[in-house]
């Protein structure tokens, strides 16, 4: 006991002498914490954790919503292997993630660099460029986007003016993906704001020093901006990749919920939705959902593992 007493720091000794009030206060604090956490905790358990556990179970069953699930073991997963639509869904989603995400980030970084250089009216432009990503996820934008790319729509008229073969993109399986990638690029506002904040953190002295050494703008960008910004790039890349895998609303609207034309916009989540809610194959859909979760988790781990080779945390020595 005495040994223990000497180890208690001076500040806490007083409370140890009066243990009751302190403990009561602690209990009260804990109780209060749970009361405040309650709404979130109930929501998390009932709306997130519960359904996730349920869907993990359903992934191994044949479940049509109407009757009790039947255990089928790995059948759903083996069926995925020979499902041509499933392969198509991966192809479509893969192209979207691999092409769409880098383009979106490039657009975001380019605009952020421009805004960072501008002094006058930067606040206005920042808001203006951010606007599309506020409304971008909405159904109405997808509808407007579709209208833009129809026969005789603005894009078609521009194409005709430039002498390219006419015709809307909406009904063309070779063009529909470009439409969706353009839509996601246009919503660069989120990562742009984060890039902009990152750019403000890059110390001016580094550029000044580089200028003294005779470095040009490209050299400055590659040798200073990119390494200093790499944690922000990492963060944006990770978030946007995860988001891209989960694209649903715009693809649903633009293809009328079918994944058409000719399966060219059959995104993973859209196919999952069709299987679950159109075809009553909830078990199959749950299996797809879990594979997607695992793939995203794997990619996240991969990102973090490789990050130490290219992400530069400035810390104190950078200053």
């Amino acid at each position, binding site marked *: *006991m005495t040994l*223990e007493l000497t180890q208690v720091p001076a500040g806490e000794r007083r409370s140890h002498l009066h*243990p009751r009030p302190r*403990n009561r206060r602690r*209990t009260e604090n*804990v109780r209060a914490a*749970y009361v405040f956490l309650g709404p979130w905790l*109930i929501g998390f358990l*009932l709306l997130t954790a519960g359904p996730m556990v349920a869907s993990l179970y359903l992934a191994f069953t044949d479940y*049509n*919503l*109407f*009757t009790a699930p039947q255990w089928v073991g790995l059948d759903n997963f083996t069926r995925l292997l020979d499902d*041509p639509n499933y392969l198509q869904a991966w192809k479509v989603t893969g192209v979207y993630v691999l092409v769409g995400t880098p383009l979106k980030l490039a657009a975001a970084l380019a605009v952020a660099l421009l805004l960072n250089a501008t002094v006058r009216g930067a606040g206005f432009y920042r808001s203006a460029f951010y606007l599309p990503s506020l409304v971008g996820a909405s159904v109405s934008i997808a509808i407007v986007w*579709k209208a833009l790319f*129809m*026969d005789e729509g603005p894009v078609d008229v521009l194409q005709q003016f430039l002498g390219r073969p006419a*015709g*809307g993109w*909406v*009904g*063309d*399986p070779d063009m529909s993906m470009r439409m969706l990638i353009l839509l996601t690029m246009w919503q660069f506002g989120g990562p742009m704001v984060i890039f902009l904040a990152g750019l403000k953190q890059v110390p001016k002295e580094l550029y000044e020093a580089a200028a003294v050494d005779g470095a040009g703008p490209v050299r400055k960008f590659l040798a200073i901006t990119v390494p200093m910004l790499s944690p922000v790039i990492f963060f944006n890349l990770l978030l946007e990749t995860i988001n891209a895998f989960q694209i649903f609303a715009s693809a649903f609207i633009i293809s*009328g*919920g*079918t*994944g*058409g*034309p*000719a*399966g060219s916009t059959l995104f993973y989540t859209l196919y999952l939705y*069709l299987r679950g*809610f*159109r*075809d*009553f*194959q909830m078990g199959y859909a749950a299996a797809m959902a879990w594979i997607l979760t695992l793939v995203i988790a794997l990619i996240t781990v991969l990102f973090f593992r490789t990050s130490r080779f290219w992400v530069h945390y400035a810390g104190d020595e950078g200053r």
Partner: protein
Amino acid sequence: MTSRARRGAGPRRHRVGRIAGSFVAIGALLAASACTAGGSSAPSTTIDPQEKVTLNFTWWGDASRAERYEKAIDLFEAANPNVTVKTSFSAFADYWTARNTEAASRTLPDVFQMDLAYLAEYGGFGHVAPLEDYLGGLIDVDAVDPALVEAGKVEGKTVAVTTSSSTMAVMLNEPLLKTLGVEVPDADMTWDEWDAFLARAGAAGAGSDPEVYGGVDYTAYFWLFQIWLGQQGLAFVEDGRLGFEPADLARWFSRSPALNDSRAVMPPERKAQLDGVDALGIAEVSADINWANFLPRFAEGPASPELSLLLPPHDEGQDTGLFLKPGLMLSIGANSDHPANAAQLVDFLLNDPEVAGIFGMSRGAPASKTATEGIEANSLDEKILDYQDQIAGSLDGTAPPAVKGLGTMEQTFVTVADELAYGRTSPQEAADRWFAEAEIALG
């Protein structure tokens, strides 16, 4: 030391207990609500006219259908002052998403619009009430075509009442064909003659503004394919299995590439862009094969085409394969607290001539002859009724029974036909893919 440890553990154990307790409470609550929802009382077939009853009624459709249903419900409520009917409606796809969730939680509306495509799921798994106790009593089906009464059966039990029916017809835009200088075909065409006609019309329509094509790629029409199967002496479903081979479907799909290579049918690129309008309604095609009761929809389209109805193509010496397709059906949720009142509402919507007068032909041809008497036909309705009379003696096909996965089969049919139209797959491959999906859907 020990006393301290115990003091620490005390509240902790208490806390765990309390959390566990609240979980048990939540669980019990869920279980209790599940019980009340699942517990069904014995169906009553009598109505207490004094009892205040509220019924929920829901359907899919557009605003004009909603307006018509509301008028009909007003009449029903006036005749049955003790009953209040709460209504709601949505578009077809959303409608089924909502119903499916309700079915899973056993909270279906008292009365709701049903489609043949989903009848097997709802009837087979006991989510809708069997209507045997009401047929002949609260629900009068004497004036309904027996084939349509039969169509509402799943595994021998009547689980839906058919309020309307429809048949397929060739629709021709004769004035447009005359402008293009294309000879208007007559009633008896073989499939090859039909394709040749579409090609002629398409060729003549090249360069007009807007571009006019012969027709729409009819090989994507699931129900027309079933009529064609009937013409070949094959059944779509027989004894719960598909009654034909992939080779039969491949033969049907093999008509598609030639149509799409010429201007015989509207290209898929164009078709995909039609949103809320029909190719026939905007007069970008000269003909189509579609449901006869869609005539007003097409005729009242932006281009107001003047359309005439003809028998669908069939090869010489073959049946027409035509059948009355059950249109809008009505079912009663198995969880309904007032099934007798619900049955009364179903009967009213089925048989009442005034209701039929409100709907006209917009639901399809009324299934009940009592209801038909209430229709004051306009010129479009006359055309449909004339066509129905004309083919009444040629209905030698049979509608498919309600089988599980019919909805999926239709959607998949459209999907593979779409890929075929774009030339992304071959007729044989499309047929094989549809078969694989259909067999899984059929269960």
